[in-house]
């Protein structure tokens, strides 16, 4: 069953002669619980695609459907709720809130949603992410790998339907990279979440159920991994 579907997604930056097309009529769908890797050279539109899927950017044309609902037909506040409940976004550069400590950063989507924090889930996540004992640390007091784990924790805390990761290991060493990928796969398996990962790393891509290759904003290949 498709959880996510895009129709002719197009994103253009600039106008007239200076216009650059980052995405050019991209259409695909993703099944629930699927682990999808998006690969492609730099500037091929991978990050743009992911940001649009996460509703933090808007397409110039085209539509995104999540569970059959047109994401961008919602107003700004509905989009905010969508982002905090349906999507977990992991950025290459973590994008943690510098004034909040680790625990607060992880629970931020829940707190924004006005719900009570599930202590057990938080503790599990902290264990899973190996962040025990660093609850009160600020992001600036952590290493890159730890910050990335916090950003994963934030993405998973609310048990979103889809986890989107934009080169989650791009700034990490091989050991940290392995740990992060394992973490994401584990979460994918344990919580049945749909996982879409952008990566340059073929080894990570090969661990996915499916690989979409983008070039110049277009899907040039869409393969199931055996």
């Amino acid at each position: 069953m498709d959880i996510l579907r895009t129709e002719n997604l197009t994103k253009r930056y600039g106008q007239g002669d200076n216009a650059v097309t980052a995405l050019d009529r991209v259409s695909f769908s993703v099944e629930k619980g699927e682990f999808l890797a998006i690969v492609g050279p730099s500037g091929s539109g991978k990050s743009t695609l992911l940001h649009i899927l996460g509703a933090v950017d808007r397409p110039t044309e085209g539509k995104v459907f999540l569970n059959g609902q047109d994401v961008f037909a919602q107003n700004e506040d509905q989009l905010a709720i969508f982002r905090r409940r349906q999507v977990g976004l992991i950025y290459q550069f973590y994008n943690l809130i510098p004034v909040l400590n680790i625990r607060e950063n992880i629970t931020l989507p829940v707190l924004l949603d006005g719900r009570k924090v599930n202590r057990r889930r938080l503790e599990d996540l902290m264990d899973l992410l190996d962040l025990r004992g660093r609850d009160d640390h600020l992001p600036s007091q952590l290493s890159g790998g730890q910050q990335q784990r916090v950003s994963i924790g934030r993405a998973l805390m609310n048990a979103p339907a889809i986890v989107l990761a934009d080169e989650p290991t791009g700034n990490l060493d091989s050991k940290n990279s392995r740990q992060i990928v394992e973490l994401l796969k584990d979460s994918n398996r344990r919580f049945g979440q749909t996982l879409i990962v952008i990566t340059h790393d073929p080894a990570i891509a090969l661990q996915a159920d499916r690989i979409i290759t983008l070039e110049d904003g277009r899907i040039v290949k869409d393969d199931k991994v055996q």
Partner: protein
Amino acid sequence: MKLLRSLTWRTMRQNRARSLATLAGILLSVAMFTAVTTVGVSVWDYVYRATAEDRGDYYICFPRLTQEQRDRLLTEGNLREAAECRNLGYLRFAYEGNAGYAVDPIAAVDEEYFSAQSVSTSLGRLPENDRELTVSMAAYRYLCRQGYDLGDTVELTLYDRLPLHFYEELVPDPEEVAFTREYTLVGVLDYGIFFSQENLINDGENQQLQTACLTRMGAGDQPIWYRIYGKTADPRAVYDLQNGGYGETILNDALLSVCGAGSDGAFPLSLGAIYGALIGVVLIAAVWVISNAFSISVSQRAREFGLLASVGATRKQIRASVFTEAAILYAMGLVGGLAAGLGLSWLCKALYGSWLEGQFSLGGTTPVRVVISPPALLLAAGISGAAVLLSAWKPARLAGKMSPIEAIRHSEETRKLPRRQGIRPWTYRLWGLPGVLAKKYYAVHRRRYRSTVASLAVSVSLLLCVWTGCDMVTSAAEASWDLHTADFECFALAGSEGMPQELGDYFARVEARPEVEESCRFVSRTVSMTVQAESLSEPYRRYLAGTGPEALPETGEILVEAEVVYVQDGALEAALAQQGLSLDPSKALVLRQRYTYPDTVDGRTRTRTVEGSPFADAPGAVTGRVGSKFDIMQRAAEELMPGKSLLWDGEEHIGPGGESYVTFLEFGGAGTGELDHTYLPEVAGDQLRLYAYDPATGEAAAQPDLEMDIGEPLTLTLGPELENAPLGVQTKNSLTLIYPLSALEGEDVEPHLAIRVSRYASMRSYLGEERRLALLQVNLGTRETGSRIFLPDYTDYLENEASLRGTLALVRGLSYGFAALIALLATASVFNTVSTSLLLRRRDLGMLRSVGMDAGQTYRMMLSESVIYGVRALLWSVPASLALCYGFYLWSGAVNHIDFSMPWGALGIACFGVLALVLATTVYSVARLRREVPMEAIRSDGI
């Protein structure tokens, strides 16, 4: 460097909102400097021109020059401007009704004379050649009676000297010479300046020598003497010319004072002090605002500077980048600021010009104008340039010192956070997530917000202080005003006494006017006397307690001052009946007139310890205000010393022997301002004797110069307090005892007439016309009654009150205007800080939105943050300014006898204003940020 300049320019364009806010701060500062300097120059220009119109546009006058002196002065005197006037001779007209005759000098003048002396005509025109004559009004009337009018040619007999032999030195021949000249009458002079100058060459007693006739200089003139009005390039050079061998000189001290070269120099000093203080305050405020703006700019560009430093930019280059931004913004703000400053000056002129004209114009018609002075504009530009430079200095140094890696990481600020930053459950419940985030962000950006808090605090303090200060000044001023129940008070000028019939007729005419709604004849007296303190009624005690510098004693003899008004019979009874009251004869107060005499001041207690003085045995020391008895004395002195001007002085002086004395009466020479005599009083029984006293030696004359009868003790019956006093009674400033006019029966008194009118303008016109007609008749010599002249006059209380209120309104307006300008600067600063602070956090806000923060939460967070610093500003400023105001009240309020009132209105406005400002700025900034999608904001962190 070119690349850095280009980068700076691009950064400014990219951060347009911040650049605009900084530009607004610079523009406002330039505008304020321009307005302050331009208004200063314009006020100076106005005072100069008004003084020149009133006293003549020259620095020095050489009133009696021989031809040799005149020629030498014009060639060697280094005069920048010179106007010449030649005395051709004197006319002698036997005016009708006068015993003697008038002496009118004929003066031949050059073109420059009309610039140096503001002479105009009431009829016809000024002379254009040496055959034309413009005459005085008195001469014109005389000539009209002889059958001449303007346009006629008349043969006049001139004499070569005054009949009083003033000019023996110039004209040694004792025989006077008469000669005739023909003139065409072309006009009648209408300004007194020339006449008052002429007064300076007579003895000041021959009042008929106050006129002059003007013609133009001609080739055939044979002047008796020459007069030159001159200006030197440096006004102070006139003091050298005084000793240049040109005989008598007259300095135009009023104009020299305006130029800062007068004998006292008080005017430019005080004006300079006011404007210096203004410029100082504006400079501080401007440096603060602009410096704040540049600090923000440096914060915003921190990452950029870090990256530049990491690739090899030197500190100097980075500093230069900040200064480049400052220079660009200054250049952009300069022109607009100068224009806005000139606009502000025009506004000031439109609002306050007519008031200023009313304050300084002494019968002249000088209008206030805005003077666009290049030096003033240059000064404004220079000071504001210095302010911008000063403002950019610290931020530039900060930018230069910035650690590249700290700047790139942007982690410096979060390092200031305490290590434990957990959200405690109760905190979360109390504030909610937006509130907690606001608190955290405030903690991180505390330093950046410090200037915002300070700007707001200063504005609030200024508003509260100005508000309270204006209230206090208004209350004190109103308490000191002599507000009257009447609209006009009609009376006869001094010299009219002994003419009850004339005065009665005048009052009857006034009372019969249809405009008069109510009238009351009255006599007002101020009496000072000693009284037993325990006999005072409670309202009088309350009044006295508020007037003296010392605590009012409960018992014993004290000096009191009483306003006693005798009102037309029936008026007091009517006022009492209005309140359902009647006279209470049981309350009696016995007052006895008494005077002070030399005593020694020992702290606050005066004791009589003058030894070796003829007054050592004078009876009774007094406490209280010694200056309060002069109303009685003035009347006596005027009667005894006619023609002398009186200077009153209640000051205490310390004599050469260490004894203190109170100057009691001082008689000054006419118009000189210098004291001729000081008298010391002695009380002997019912007699007051005044002895000539020399303050330099401390010795008094053996025999009294003046003796006056003090009179019998006076018993006054105190009645109930009146809410609505009859016409003629002052409503404030004193406790007044009111009695029926019939109580003065048998005394030779001149009543006044108080009237309340329905049509103010019409009545004023009527009273003015009565006075003008009487003056005209006096001029024509047809209005004499025996040796006295009856001159009706009036006091316009409505106009006085309006003028007083106008002055207060001006003070209030200027104060609020000044506070508003500072508030504007603060607003620019707050707007700049808050909006830029939000822009700097674009990325954070983008991240928060990317994890699901909605619009309401964003607004709540930002508003909470704004409220934190808004409340913080109020918490600092409100108690501080209230304490300041109360301190000011304690300092001045006790003297002015006014109550301190909490400035609730100002507090409300301040709280509302602060919250509205931070709210508006936040809403504007957040709305701007929310227009972009989260990812744009997240991507914004980088070059």
